[in-house]
């Protein structure tokens, strides 16, 4: 095929670029998924005061550091977007790699945190609170991993100066992942 | 009409049946009207040679009223429907009349256990009569029931009572009924509960006061009651 894109893709009747429009719809569908998890959790939490005992065993410190790590990585995503606007592909790629690094750090901290908790008997089956704790954070972490993989790919094309609009899109996705954590953190760690 | 298919045995069966009839009449009227109109238009406007269809956008006031007015009337009908439904619902499920007797119903894969109060009329005393897949009640007496489940969801359903209620493990659900006609009837489980769901039936015996007294007497004099009870608890 002569072009990577269909005519359909290149049209923009709404004025929003096609890939960005699709991304927004993707985020909408993700919001309801996390909405479902959080609503279920809240329903339990509000009717089971005894959960706060379990919750007090979460590692608030690790959680706060991770919040900070994710927020920083989001900042790099913004910088990458900025560089892409300036048509500076290599620079955008570098920033994306820093965002990627943030994601990696997040996962490493999470890994230590979880192994510590699991070794102390707080496994996913220990109580309903811990079931939610691992499930909600696990679904979130899988999004972090997916975002990181896409980021590697986008960084690779951006380095060659191609498809720079994707930098903004992956950044948007990353902000969303970040935002979900901003909801999870207080609900799982702080509410005691 | 429904009582021809299934007799009305509880105090509220008639009420539920009349609600069904009322709803059927209202929606049936609209259904027939709509379908009549539909079929009439199909006949009246079938293609005829040399005749062109009219150009109508749907904004014409004199035509639009044919849709708008019925539509408004339906909203009115909806109010009547809701009022009827909520009234019956309140009487059957929300409002609990004073109990004269209380029974416990326990569902498990795939049998029902009915714990009747014994001669003393009190539940959870030594003379309780527990029975598997048999419920004995006395006509004219208002019963409360406590519905429980040991494993999965079940549903205590008595078609002749027009009564249905899910049993949920870990919860105790309260309800009531008042049988009015003596006889032998079916109890069915109405919630999918596994392989044996299809055979999870039980018998309901609605008895006259004399019969019931005799039954209570028979089952409390002998050791049967105690035996069944330990059997059930095991």
């Amino acid at each position, binding site marked *: *095929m002569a072009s990577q894109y*269909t*005519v*359909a*893709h290149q049209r923009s*009747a709404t004025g*929003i670029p096609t890939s960005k429009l699709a991304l927004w*719809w993707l985020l909408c*569908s993700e919001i*309801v*998924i996390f*909405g*479902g*998890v959080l609503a*279920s959790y809240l329903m*339990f939490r509000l009717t089971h005061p005894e959960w706060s005992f379990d919750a007090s065993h979460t590692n608030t410190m690790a959680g706060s550091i991770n919040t900070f790590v994710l927020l920083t990585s989001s900042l790099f995503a913004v910088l990458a977007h900025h560089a892409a606007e300036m048509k500076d592909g290599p620079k955008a790629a570098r920033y994306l790699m820093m965002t990627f690094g943030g994601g990696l750090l997040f996962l490493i901290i999470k890994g230590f945190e979880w192994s510590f908790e699991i070794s102390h008997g707080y496994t996913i*089956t220990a109580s*309903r609170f811990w*079931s*939610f704790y691992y*499930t909600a954070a696990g679904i979130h972490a899988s999004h972090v991993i997916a975002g990181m993989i896409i980021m590697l790919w986008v960084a690779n094309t951006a380095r060659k100066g191609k498809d720079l609009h994707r930098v903004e899109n992956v950044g948007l996705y990353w902000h969303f992942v970040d935002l979900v954590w901003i909801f999870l953190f207080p609900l799982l760690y702080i509410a005691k | 009409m*429904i009582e021809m*298919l299934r007799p009305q045995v509880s105090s509220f069966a008639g009420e*539920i049946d009349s*609600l*069904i009839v009322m709803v059927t009449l209202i*929606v049936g009227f609209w259904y027939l009207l*709509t379908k009549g109109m539909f079929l009439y*238009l199909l006949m009246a406007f079938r*293609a*005829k040679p040399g005749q*062109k*269809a009219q*150009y109508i*956008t*749907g904004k014409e006031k004199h035509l639009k009223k044919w849709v708008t007015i019925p*539509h408004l009337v*339906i*909203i009115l009908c*909806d109010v009547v429907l809701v009022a009827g*439904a*909520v009234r*019956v*619902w*309140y009487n059957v*499920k*929300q409002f609990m009349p004073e109990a004269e007797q209380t029974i416990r119903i326990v569902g498990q*894969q795939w049998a029902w256990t009915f714990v009747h109060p014994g001669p003393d009329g009190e539940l959870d005393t030594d003379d309780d009569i527990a029975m598997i897949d048999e419920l004995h009640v006395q006509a004219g007496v208002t019963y409360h029931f406590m519905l429980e489940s040991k*494993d999965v969801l079940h549903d205590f359903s008595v078609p002749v009572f*027009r009564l*249905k209620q*899910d049993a949920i*493990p870990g919860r105790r659900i309260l309800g009531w009924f008042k049988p009015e006609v003596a006889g032998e009837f079916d109890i069915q*489980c*109405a*919630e999918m509960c*596994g392989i*044996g769901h*299809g055979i999870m*039936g039980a018998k309901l015996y609605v008895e006259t006061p004399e019969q019931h007294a005799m039954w209570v007497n028979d089952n409390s004099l002998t050791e049967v009651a105690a035996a069944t009870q330990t059997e059930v608890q095991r």
Partner: protein
Amino acid sequence: MSEAAVHPDGHEHDHHDHEMTFVEKWIFPLDHKYIGKQYLFTGMVMALFGGFLAYAFRMQLAWPGTDIPLFGHMSPAEYNAAVTNHGTIMIFWVAMPVLIAAFGNFLIPLMVGADDMVFPRLNRLSYQVFLLSAIVIVASLFVPGGGFGGAWTAYPPLSAVAAYNLTPQGSTMWLLAVALEFIAFLIGGINFITTAMNSRAPGMTWEKVPMVVWMICIASILFMASVGPLMAGAVMLLFDQTIGTGFFDPARGGDPILWQHLFWFFGHPEVYVVLLPATGMVAEIVPTFARKKLFGYKTVLFTAIGTGVLSFFVWAHHQFIAGIDPRMANVFTITTVLISIPIAEMMFLYIATLYGGSIRFTTPMLWALGFIFAFLIGGVTGIPLGASGADIYFHDSYFVIAHFHFTFFPIAFIGTFAGLTYWYPKMFGRMMNETLGKIHFWGTMISFHCLFIPMFVLGLAGQHRRIYDFTNFPELGVPFLQDIRVFCTSALLVLLAFQFVFLYNFIVSMFRGEKASENPWNANTLEWATPSPPGHGNFKEFPNVYRGPYEYSVPDRESDFWPQHHPA
């Protein structure tokens, strides 16, 4: 935006130039028309499978315990698995893929005047995930322990604990298949919505978009907005099944009712997800053959949106007697009865479209009218169920079964047949046989009514669902009721027999049918402005749009139709 900017180096011609190979068409297609057909054929195969399951368990109900031809003896566990998978397959692997994915794929790019979907690769991925899910659900019936038998609603703890359902592998595979199917449709839905929003031909403003495109998009949005919580629930249920968390297990502090809320919060909007595309197709077909403008385009649109919005507030009408707070039932009765308002309005508008028309009873038109005819019964019988007091008696009885087959069958089969016979010339370049089409129509309609109307009576007689042998119950085993069951099953056999007329017509016409012209029905929408079947890239010259899709019989014009792309 000017056309030149849209395709800067004129490469759109490349799309037409080369003939696609077999692999490019059928194995790894990127072309939306072939992906649509893949969905269609997969859906048809699954329909035959779901129909076979229905045949098997209906035979068991009519003649309990006897050997069923082509199936053999049916055990209670097999009965449950057959019913569960029949329901799941018919909804998720027949109605959804055919109505949304097959027609959505085929129609949206053509009707909005584009060359393809915005993301062809994603589109292909969506089908591949879907195909995988179909394989998993079919395979789940053959694993040790048998297929999942806990009903399509999969209420825990039964579905969550292998010791209760006794199908450890079947239930997990069932859940995985459903989750995969959801993913496939999320991907597909994003593609549909984005294409319809962004790739419309110049001049096609929102009130000039054909109704079926609107309906498929609204349906996709509904799906997207409702399925999320159930996706979360599915993960939770999967963990309950496999690693022993207890989200839904009351013995360990979980809550089985939570699943019901998650399920029905999706489950109710889901019924409108399949309803809307079917009504959309009816909205295309009725104006074409009545040679009339659709009565009140915008109102139809608002009724669809209204139905969609309201559908999020009615879910607990499936749980009236499930042990929720009885006061909640009153709220949900009100919302449920309210939903009759937009749907009644929509039906009235379709019927009003007939007024003043010049109606031609071709096969597609017969199916479209048949849809309205049958769906009205399904719709009005939803009201007694929504009336909480009456639902105490009707819940989980055959009245419910009859109600929803009178909605689902019109949608999944009658509506699909309407769409298929209407767009067949465009899909395969040939016409279907009208005589066979009409035989199929009358045979199906009559046997369908004979099949399900008696089930209302069974429901009124207090017969419950999901029971494999009613002769076990003294009240239900009486000859009068058993005769009705035999009658239903016989009607099903007739119904099935007539489907072979369709299959014959469908397959043979593909090769022998009369060659179709570009616009055999003299219709207005853009898909008729390109050869039948359209080549790769769809349009030789991308059309501009000058008017709405339903300008039939405009006064002072020679012909009684006025295609959207003809300049004034």
